[in-house]
């Protein structure tokens, strides 16, 4: 096992719609090392969603090579792709995508139900541990409807972590959250990254991207910019600052969204 989690080699993706074909990706070369925290940026239509689908093994490239954790993706069939997603990738979606009327614990347990390697025995204990990692140990039996947006997203992150994947792939994870909760979620991602988890974050918000270590900008199906983040921000610190502001100005608006216990847990994780 080497240091490289993702290596793509001239990946292209072409969609045929009727007579004209759409070139969503026109040759992407991207290498992601273990422990990196990358923000993939781009406008809508830039191809970043397609890239994310390909990186997440939800879609296969039209041409080019894709190697994830030493596995050649382009040679795999549908079932092998499913197993690969289960083992190597943790997904975090914009809309949380939790199962409604299903407890946080069962939501987090879900990927383990589809584990065929047999290495995940005690799925319940693993799910509880994952929820503990995102600071929701006290919300194990809550249903998504009983949780705030930030908490729901943290359940989703726990679900992504529970299989101990090589890569966490987050697609606009803050898209449905207010700015304060967004920072909270980014603080969690930063904390997890500190613990050695490789994260690829797809976003169109520069405000969010500054919490990553490296920015890859996609435009017209090609990588236009690939550089380390200058002026990287620490989400935990930003959170502490906004908290002061909140106390003074807009307590009544944003206070119900966040439970103080959760905020402390996140801040504690970073420290």
């Amino acid at each position, binding site marked *: 096992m080497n240091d490289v989690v993702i290596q793509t080699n001239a990946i292209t993706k072409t969609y045929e719609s009727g007579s004209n074909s759409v070139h969503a990706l026109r040759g992407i070369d991207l290498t992601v090392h273990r422990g990196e925290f990358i923000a993939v940026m781009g406008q809508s239509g830039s191809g970043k969603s397609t890239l994310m*689908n390909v990186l*997440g093994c*939800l*879609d296969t490239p039209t041409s080019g090579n894709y190697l994830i954790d030493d596995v050649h993706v382009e040679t795999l069939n*549908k*079932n092998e792709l*499913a*197993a690969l*997603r*289960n*083992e190597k990738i943790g*997904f975090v*979606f914009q809309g949380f*995508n939790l*199962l409604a*009327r*299903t407890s946080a614990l069962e939501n987090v347990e*879900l*990927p383990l*139900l*589809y*584990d065929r390697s047999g290495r995940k025995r005690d799925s319940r204990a693993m799910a509880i541990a994952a929820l503990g990692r995102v600071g929701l140990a006290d919300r194990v039996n809550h249903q998504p409807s009983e949780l705030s947006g930030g908490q729901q997203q943290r359940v989703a992150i726990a*679900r992504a972590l529970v*299989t101990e994947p090589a890569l966490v792939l987050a697609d606009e994870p803050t898209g449905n959250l207010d700015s304060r909760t967004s920072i909270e979620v980014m603080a969690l991602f930063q904390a997890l990254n500190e613990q050695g988890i490789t994260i690829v974050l797809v976003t169109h918000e520069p405000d969010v991207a500054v919490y990553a270590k490296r920015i890859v900008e996609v435009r017209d199906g090609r990588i236009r910019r690939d550089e380390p983040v200058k002026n990287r921000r620490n989400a935990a610190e930003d959170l502490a600052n906004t908290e002061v502001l909140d106390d003074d100005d807009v307590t009544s608006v944003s206070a119900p969204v966040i439970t103080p216990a959760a905020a402390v847990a996140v801040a504690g994780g970073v420290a």
Partner: protein
Amino acid sequence: MKLMTLVKLALQAIRKNKMRATLTMLGIIIGVAAVIVMVAVGYGARSRIKEQINNLGTNMIVITPGASATGGVSQGAQAFATLTVDDATKIRNEAQYVTAISPVVATRMQVVAPQGNWRTSINGVDIDYQTIRNWTTSDGAFFGPDDVRSAHTVAVLGRTVAQRLFPNSEPVGQEVQIGKVPFTIVGVLVPKGQTAAGTDSDDVILVPYTTASSRLSGRARIPQIIASAASQQDIPAAQDEVRALVRESHKLTQGDDDDFTIKNQNELADAAASSTDVMTMLMAAIASISLLVGGIGIMNIMLVSVTERTREIGIRLAIGARGSDVLTQFLVESIVMGVIGGAIGLLVGFIGAKVLGHFTGWETVISPVIMIISIGFSGAVGVFFGFYPARKAAALNPIQALRYE
């Protein structure tokens, strides 16, 4: 995934949509209940007929002349020999398992009494007849061994005959004329009611078989011998024994076919009951149409459910479920729905049959076999009608499913 997990998932999904699941299952419930009630009524009729046949006598064996029912080919004139009184005597003397035996010499004749006349069956029988048929007299007594030995002209009347010939007076001790021969009435039988075939078993006169063959029909050959085995278990042994003895009596050698037929009571009962089976099948077939409609209901709801839960399917596929996992999940869900519906339908059918039986007086019989079949069948309905929606779910593209609003 483990089966338990799948069933748990299915139950969760059903619980999340209680009302809808209940309405969906209603189709299956009604279907299964209808089948159960129909079959229960049919089986009830069957067992009633069997009971009537059993009413004929105790552990009865019936020997009739002629080739066995399965042999259609003519055996030739001589081989088509019939039973004789000698056969009956031989069985009586030599058989171990036969406790009672009586030839039945049957004719139909006009009977004349002072107050009226009536045409009825005259059965010449032995004294064992009342044991075999389990038929006692209500007035007077059955004729005795002496009457048989000496061929006395004595008669025992069935209840119907007694009422027809002696509407106003006591028949015992009076005389009737059967054909040209005067007979003294010694007894009247207790009423037995209708036979399984719907004829009146009390429309009969019993006389000693010796008298019947010498004075009435003039035939030495007899149309039927009836016998009783000691117990239900002895019936097969008794049948074999009787067969061997009659073959010996008829001097049949190894290769010859039987020139007579032996049937026991159970076989007679089965033959009579088989006609009701056709009716039962027909009713069950009609009832099972509603089961089919219920199945279509399941399919419809599963299709709606798959569309509704497209996102859920997308999530499952994204986090590593295979198409087959999703297929199994939805299939198990529809099977569970079918089986639960079947179980409730079984209960409703059970109660329905009892209620129906209570109000109509029909006997209803619910066999365990039909219970298992109906549950199994409703599960099969779940598989059959759940497969298409489940396959549709499994074929979804995870990217599109995740984006589905």
